[in-house]
């Protein structure tokens, strides 16, 4: 099949976006602070907004209720058998909190919070994770100064170097093993949906 191509100079389709339209839709925030609106919010105000809008799912201290996401705690658990991945223990950048809370929270009423609300909530989540003190005020000015504890533990996909060489060997076809034993059964964990089980293994988050 042939590839679709554009004429010299383009199609001239669509229309130029107005500055207002871009401002309305361009809601993303980056680690370097790009996208942050002017504003600020304190841990104290954050706690108040949180208790009205967030706590009934995520818990008063962001500890999570029932199966709703846990947002605080879990420091030092990342190499445990059951790591607890939270904003404090796992997230590499604070900008992600601001970005995500505005675009997707509260669940069911996205993009309803003002910039000051989101600064305040973000400050409260830093506080819940012992990253700032209770008198902290977060703003577009000091935002980039906050470093997240786990940032250094992220690294770029290295499968090409660490895995692919090992997984491109020609495999054995005949008499590859002497013995084969069954080492694990799904029926032991017993969580197949048909059975109505409540689940034992990890979820998909």
């Amino acid at each position, binding site marked *: 099949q042939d590839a679709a191509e554009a004429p010299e100079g383009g199609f001239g389709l669509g229309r130029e976006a107005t500055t207002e339209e871009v401002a309305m839709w361009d809601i993303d925030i980056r680690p370097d602070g790009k996208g942050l609106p002017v504003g600020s919010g304190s841990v104290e105000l954050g706690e108040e907004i949180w208790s009205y809008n967030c706590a009934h799912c995520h818990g008063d201290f962001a500890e999570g209720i029932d199966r709703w996401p846990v947002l605080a705690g879990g420091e030092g658990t990342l190499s445990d058998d059951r790591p607890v991945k939270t904003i404090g223990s796992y997230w590499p950048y604070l900008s992600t909190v601001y970005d995500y809370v505005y675009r997707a929270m509260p669940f069911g009423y996205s993009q309803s919070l003002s910039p000051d609300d989101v600064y305040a909530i973000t400050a409260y989540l830093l506080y819940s994770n012992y990253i700032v003190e209770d008198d902290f005020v977060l703003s577009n000015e000091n935002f980039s100064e906050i470093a997240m504890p786990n940032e250094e533990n992220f690294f770029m996909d290295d499968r090409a170097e660490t895995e692919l060489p090992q997984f491109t060997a020609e495999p054995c076809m005949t008499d590859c093993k002497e013995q084969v034993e069954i080492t694990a*059964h799904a029926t032991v964990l017993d969580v197949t949906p048909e059975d109505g089980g409540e689940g034992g293994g*990890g979820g998909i988050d």
Partner: protein
Amino acid sequence: AAASVGAAAGGAARASSDPAFAEIQPWMQELGDPVDAAPYGMPSEFEAHVQRKTVYWLTADPISSINFTPLHELDGIITPNGLCFERHHSGAAHVDPALHRLMINGLVDRELVFTMEDLMRFPRENHVYFLECAANSGMEWRGSQLNGCQFTHGMIHNVMYTGIPLRLLLAEAGIQTAGKWLLAEGADAAGMTRSIPMEKALDDCLVAFKMNGEALRVEQGYPLRLVVPGWEGNMWVKWLRRLEVGDEPWHHREETSKYTDLLADGKARRFTWEMDAKSVITNPSPQAPLTHGAGPTVLSGLAWSGRGTIPRVDVTLDGGKNWHQARMSGPSLSKSMHRFYFEFDWNGQPLLLQSRAHDSTGYVQPTKNALRELRGTNSIYHNNGIQTWHVKKTGEAENVEVS
């Protein structure tokens, strides 16, 4: 209009122990449905069990959750639209196409807004691609857990897309030299975002509006979705409303908190985009036992790779002692599912079934243990290890692991 004159035909000959021959079946005597019965048709009432299924304990809420493609009920390589698994983070958005826009902004010469009608004036291409959630088989990292390939491997579908090459849309806006990354954003209540390197964006990505010939389904991003061939499903942003060109990635929630692969030492891989080669035997499997006893048996399965085609799949009946090359069937398309078969004469004894995909780069699907040795068991994502089904004498199959 019964035959009121003359006796009923052939009464004497109706001697058979097979109930199918007990009488002339009603569907062979009485009229069936007219052609205006179903302007948009649905499957037979006898296929009502062929469904997407969810697993309630996996997530807090069925609104930000997943359901699974019933792979064991399908054949060939096309997934019917009604059975394509769903994953959304704030529910499936019902977007009015008349009010839908695609914006391109950021490091471009012209920031643009397109209506759906504008987009229909760009050249289109057609390609079959698999879409696999990075979390597919993620529940199996700590050991075999779910009894059925629908649940262990059903976060995947394979569809023919019609879409606009993304590079044509970006060229229309004019990418500036500093533009090395793209942010794709959805119009759902999750405002789903992912960062995509410009090289991939200009390579084979599509902005798709049709799947398997018809408009995208609501739960697959109607009216517009990004197609990112071979890369993890979360990047295929649905209800696509905006593309921003930038000089750095965004490190948003779905590429930090989620869709990063935590290794045993507490470090985490980010930007693990490509889906490694993988395969699964769909039949027999726990939801599709062998019911016919010993004798000729059709083993079937699916294989795919985010890096190309699947020229070869090996199958073992004895848990990996001896392997046999499967027969590949159907079109072999890059970054598409491939169907394989292995026909054998079952002796009625227990089997330990596995399949092993080879892709066109020479990659061979590893065992789960080989992956665990490199990654531990906390990674959630990218589990492409070899799956084992234990078929018992009764023909029932169970999800197991072997030494």
